[in-house]
Each structure stands twice: as C-alpha cells, then as structure tokens.
C-alpha cells in the first residue's frame, strides 16, 4: 500500500535550504571592486514577479518532497528545481544590469551568499529527482542537463555581462583563455601519463607477488601527502637536479614551473588507476581463467580475451576518478608557477578580490563536471554487456 505522505530527506533538506536562501543577500552592490558593499536580498535586487515565482517554485519543491506522487514525482521535482536554477540565473543577470544603471563605472555587482545557497538547495533537489527517476531516460537527462545548458547559453549570450565576475573576465580575457588551455594541458598530460604508467604498474602488482605490496603501499602512501606539500617537496630535488645538470633546464626541468606540477599530478593520479587496475584484474573469476587455460588459451590470449574485457570497466572507473581529481588539483599547481585556472584563484586571494577567485573557481567546477560526464560515458562504453548491471 502506498502512503500519501512519504518524505524524501534529500529533497526536503534541499527545499529548506532553498527557502532559507530567499532570506539571505543575493547580490552585493559595491562602489568599486575591492570595498565591501550593500547586501541586497532577492526582492531588493530584482523587481517584478521573478522573486515571487522563485519562492513559489520552492514551495512546489517542498510539496513534492513530502507528497508521494509515485511516478511523476521525480519528474515534477526535477523540472521545478531546474526552473528555479534557470530563473535564478536569469534574475541575477538582469538585476546586475539594473542595479548598475546610474552608478559610476567603477561600481560592481557581485553574487552573494543567497544565490550560492539557492544553487546548493536546487542541486540537492535535482539529486533527489535523479534518484527518484532511477531508470535512465529522457527525463533523467533533461533533469541533469537543462540547467547547465541554460547557464552556458546565458553565459555566451553575454547575459551576465554586468556581474562582477564577468567584468573581471573582460579585464583578463586573453589571460583567461591562456590559463584555461594551460589548465587542460596540465591535467590532460598528467592523466594520460598516469594512465600509461598506472595500468602497467597495476598489472605488474597482480602478476608479481614481490611487487604487489610495495606498489600498492607506495601509491597509497603518496596519496596521504597533502597536495601543496607534494608540490613543495618536489622543488628541492628538481632544482638540485637542474643545477647539477643545467642541460635539463632546456626540457623544463626546474624546481618550479610546469614539470614539477605535472610530476606531482601524475603521482596523484596513480593511486586510483593502479588500485582499480589491480582490483579489476584480481576480481576476475579464477575459475574463468582456469577454464580458459585448460581449454588451450595461451597466457596472452587469456589476458587479452578474458582479463582485459572483464577488468576494463573498473580500470576506466579509476581513470575517471583520477581525471576529476586532477582537474581540481591542477588549480594548486599555479602556486609553483605552473599556471592554470589556479592563477586567478591565488591572484584573487592576493588582491582580496573575491570575484577574481570565482573567475578561476567556477570554470574549474564546470570542467570537473564535464570531465566526469565524459568519463562516465567512457566507462559505460567500456563495460562488456554481459557484466552490466552486476554490482556496477
């Protein structure tokens, strides 16, 4: 028997967070880039019906999180949450332009806590909706992707032009694309190198009982070193090396810069890749291997036809973890002069300009989500059909 009231704790929390965000300041109007300004809530920053619409949509979310509508529940919840997200983006963009009218050219409008909290609440609702829509389908994709798509559309149409982050962007336009490319290059290179190194290491650990423990122990150990410390630790040996062999400097081997950053990122990407390769191969049913050998396959044929396909999904899962992790860690690389989007973050911290920090942080998050989605697709494609749905 189905109960009419069945609260979904995630959706309920999200709705509460979302409603609470309406009380906080959404935008801050500042006379210039650095000073503190006046905080404005949703109604103060935006006139018209918009704010009431958002509040109303949140009430719908709240209702959906307690009332059991069975099948349409996830769809309604997800659609509402996406509507809130898109409305919020539209409103802050428009409100930014409205607030700046009649202000001096130095005046800035930046995003306040209310907007961010609203974002968090809405994503909790989206998450709950995705769980309710357990089987993958058009609805699930729509719920997951319509808000990000709207964001990208609004971004490139210049809708956020009058928000402070975008004004920081227009000041750094050239630098931005340069650091963006650098960021992609940093994590891309290190994940590819980590994969090329990690998979053989993982295989070696399963094949050689003397290698097994040291390999797994070492990759596990380095993971516990804080990223900043690892970047720092590499400075001394690498600069010593470059002093001892000055020729190495031509290849970029110096204490600071791109090389130590990539080395550190490769080391970090090793753990998930090595461990997943190891577990993936170990998890292959020994009976299948015994049968394959007994039927007359060579060791290589067993590896290629049985072990690789059966371990593939876990190995790719490891590469996915490593990639998403590397996108984030590459931000820190800016500290040792390797560049990347972290450059904006640390410069923003240095200048006490929060919007400059956001200019670095937001693209990192978007990039991480994008990489994650792409790698999930790769994992799905790499999982052989007969093993799908079995604990994965």
């Amino acid at each position, binding site marked *: 028997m189905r109960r009419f009231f069945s609260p979904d704790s995630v959706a309920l929390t999200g709705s509460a967070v979302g409603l609470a965000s309406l009380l906080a300041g959404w935008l801050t109007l500042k006379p210039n880039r650095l000073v503190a300004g006046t905080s404005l809530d949703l109604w103060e920053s935006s006139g018209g019906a918009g704010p009431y619409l958002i509040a109303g949509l949140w009430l719908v979310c709240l209702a959906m999180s307690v009332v059991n509508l069975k099948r349409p529940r996830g769809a309604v919840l997800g659609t509402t949450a996406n509507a809130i997200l898109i409305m919020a983006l539209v409103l802050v963009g428009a409100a930014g332009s409205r607030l700046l009218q009649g202000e001096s050219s130095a005046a800035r409008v930046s995003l306040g806590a209310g907007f961010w909290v609203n974002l968090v609440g809405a994503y909790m609702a989206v998450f709950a909706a995705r769980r309710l829509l357990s089987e993958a389908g058009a609805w699930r994709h729509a719920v997951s992707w319509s808000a990000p798509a709207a964001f990208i559309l609004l971004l490139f149409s210049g809708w956020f032009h009058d928000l402070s982050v975008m004004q920081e962007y227009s000041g750094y336009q050239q630098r931005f694309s340069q650091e963006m490319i650098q960021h992609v290059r940093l994590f891309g290179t290190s994940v590819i190198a980590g994969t090329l190194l990690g998979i053989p290491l993982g295989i070696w650990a399963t094949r050689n009982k003397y290698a097994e423990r040291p390999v797994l122990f070492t990759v596990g150990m380095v993971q516990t070193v804080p990223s900043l410390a690892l970047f720092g630790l590499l400075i001394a040996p690498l600069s010593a090396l470059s002093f001892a062999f000055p020729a190495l400097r031509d290849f970029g081997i110096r204490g600071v810069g791109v090389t130590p950053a990539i080395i550190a990122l490769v080391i970090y990407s090793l753990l998930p890749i090595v461990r997943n390769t190891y577990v993936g191969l170990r998890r292959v*049913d020994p*009976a*299948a*291997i*015994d*049968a*394959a*050998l*007994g*039927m*007359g*396959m*060579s060791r290589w*044929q067993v590896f290629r036809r*049985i072990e690789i*396909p*059966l371990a593939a999904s876990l190995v790719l899962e490891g590469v996915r973890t490593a990639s998403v992790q590397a996108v984030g860690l590459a931000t820190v690389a800016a500290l040792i002069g390797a560049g990347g989007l972290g450059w904006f973050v640390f410069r923003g911290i240095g200048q006490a300009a929060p919007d400059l920090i956001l200019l670095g942080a937001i693209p990192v998050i978007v990039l991480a989500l994008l990489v994650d989605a792409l790698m999930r697709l790769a994992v799905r494609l790499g999982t*052989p*059909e*007969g*093993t799908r749905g*079995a604990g994965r």
Partner: protein
Amino acid sequence: MITLEQVTRRYGETVAVDGLTLEVENGEVCVLIGPSGCGKTTTLRMINRLIEPSAGRILIDGRDTAGIDTRKLRLSIGYAIQSVGLFPHLTVFHNIAVVPQLLHWDKQRISGRVEELLDLVGLEPEVYAGKYPGQLSGGQAQRIGVARALAADPPIMLMDEPFGAVDPLTRERLQEQFLRIQRELKKTVVLVTHDLDEAIRLADRIAIMEAGKLVQYDTPEEILSRPGNKFVRDFVGADRALKRLSRLNITRYVKPAASVGLDGKARGAISASGDRWLWVVDDKQQLIGWVDGNLLKEGISIKEAMDAGDSREIALSESATLREALSRMLGLGFMRVPVVDNSYRLIGEVSLKDVESATSEGGG
C-alpha cells in the same frame, strides 16, 4: 588411451600425488575419487598439464604428453570444472565457440556446431545462444560448461566435479544426461568427484585414491563387492550392498507377471506358485491396479475387488535399477513390484527374492 606411469607431484615437502600408475581405456569413464586432499584433482590437472608432474610420464595413445605443446595438448582435450568458469562477458554462443575459434574453424561450421551442442545438452539454441552466463540457472550453466568442453569434439574429456555446484535433483538429471551423451559419443573421460553415488552411477572404472596413492582401481561392481582393503571398505561404507544394487538394471530380473483383465480373464501367465495377488490391466494391457485372487475365487467381480493404483506410483520402468525396485517395495509394502514399458503396459514384475539373490551373488 591415457596412461599414467609412476606419476608423482611434489609441493615442497608434501607429496600430492605419489607414484600413480593408471590406465584409462578409450571410450571408458574413469572416475577418480577419494577424501579431499587425496590428489585426485592434481592428477586430473596433470593430464592436460595445468600442473606439471614432478616425476613420471603421462601418455596419450602412447605419446608422452611432455613432448606435446601445452596449447595443442589442451585444445585436443575437453575441460569442464565444478565452478564452470563460463566467461561472463561472452554469450553462451561465444562461450561454446571459444575452442573452435582458437582452432580457426570457419564461421558457418562454428555456428552449426554450437547449435548441435545446445541441442545435445537439451537447451534450445534459439533461446539460449544469445544469453549471457549471468542469465542462466546453475544447472543450465553446468550444461553449457559441458557443451563448451565438447565443442571441438575432443576424444578425451577431463571433468572436475562437473555436476558439483547444483541441487541434488538437478545433479541427478545432469548425470542421466551425461550417461546418455556418453553412450552416444563414447569419449575417454576422466572425472573427479567426491560423491560415491555419482562415481558408482557414471563410472566404468573407479580409481580410489588416498594420500596421493592409488588404493584400488576396478569396476564399480568389483569395488563394491570386493573392496581391496579396509580403507576402501570404510570409504564405500557399510551400505555398499545397497549401493551395488544401484548398478544393477532390473531387466535381468524381470519375470512374467500374473494379471487379469477387467473382464476377469487371465492375461499372461498365472505364476506357478499361485500367488494370491494379481495385477489388473485394461484392454490396452496398461496397468491400472491389483486384486486379491482369493476374492475373485469367491465370485466377487473384479471391479469391486480391485485396488486401483496409479501406474506411475507403483510400477517401475525398464531402465530402473534394483535399488529403486527395493525402495519401491519397502515404500509400498509389496513383495513384488510391476514393471511397465514406456506406454505403461505391464511387461512383468520384480520380486524381493530376486533382489536378495542379486545381493548375495556378489558376495557383498
């Protein structure tokens, strides 16, 4: 013919198989049995060189296997194991097709062979060829395992508890199927089991092993009636007389049975001993019950005097064993049980006396 000559396998200090000498004739089923750790699986795995012997020789049709390339050797020997080891990422079709593909058969030949094998193990090709191992029951998976081992029609089959991981009812059905297939294909089979009933049922010869040594190698009948030593006697158990009965088919012991038709006319021979009980058959000679002869003599009509009985419950089929006959007698409280053919027509009966004499024949 598989010949093992003084085959030994050591693991450090321990000797898993100790100077084993054994011969398996072509077309025979040799069952290796013994307590766990007796070396039976090691012996099996030495035949296809998954384990190399530390000493001794293994010959197939007189050729030393040590001189044959391991892959070629294994491709020519079927291999089925208890945990089946089907490849979960391949369909049933491709699981069975593995060895033919390794042997570079052409596509048409492979698909024809797969279809044939699925038919052989009683799984409809249209339904099962496209399934993945994860979609099969335990019994179906084991049948696919056997089909896969048979794929390239190897003259020799090695089977390590091939019917181990299923419920008793399914196991019995698989054993029955195995015997049917074996009668048809006449493979040289070496099969490892720890189940004595299975060994007795399937084997042409049983090799009983203990601590790496061969204790007795003989037909099931011989092992049951003349256990070579105390170990074998203990191993086959105190009920070996009963076990022996399961090797004996009833056909040798079926005698003509006295029966009457519903019209009261005697059909077949009234036995000389003048047994009191008569089987009742209908006009198609199908068994429908039994009747007390004394009542008939008093002039009571058959219809009134008869005890109706379901043929399927009281009668045995021709392929039954004496053990089943005895069990049926004890269950029904009868001194004799009727035997019917496939269409439930009465063809005779087996009596308790015959079972007794069969038991004493072997001196068990």
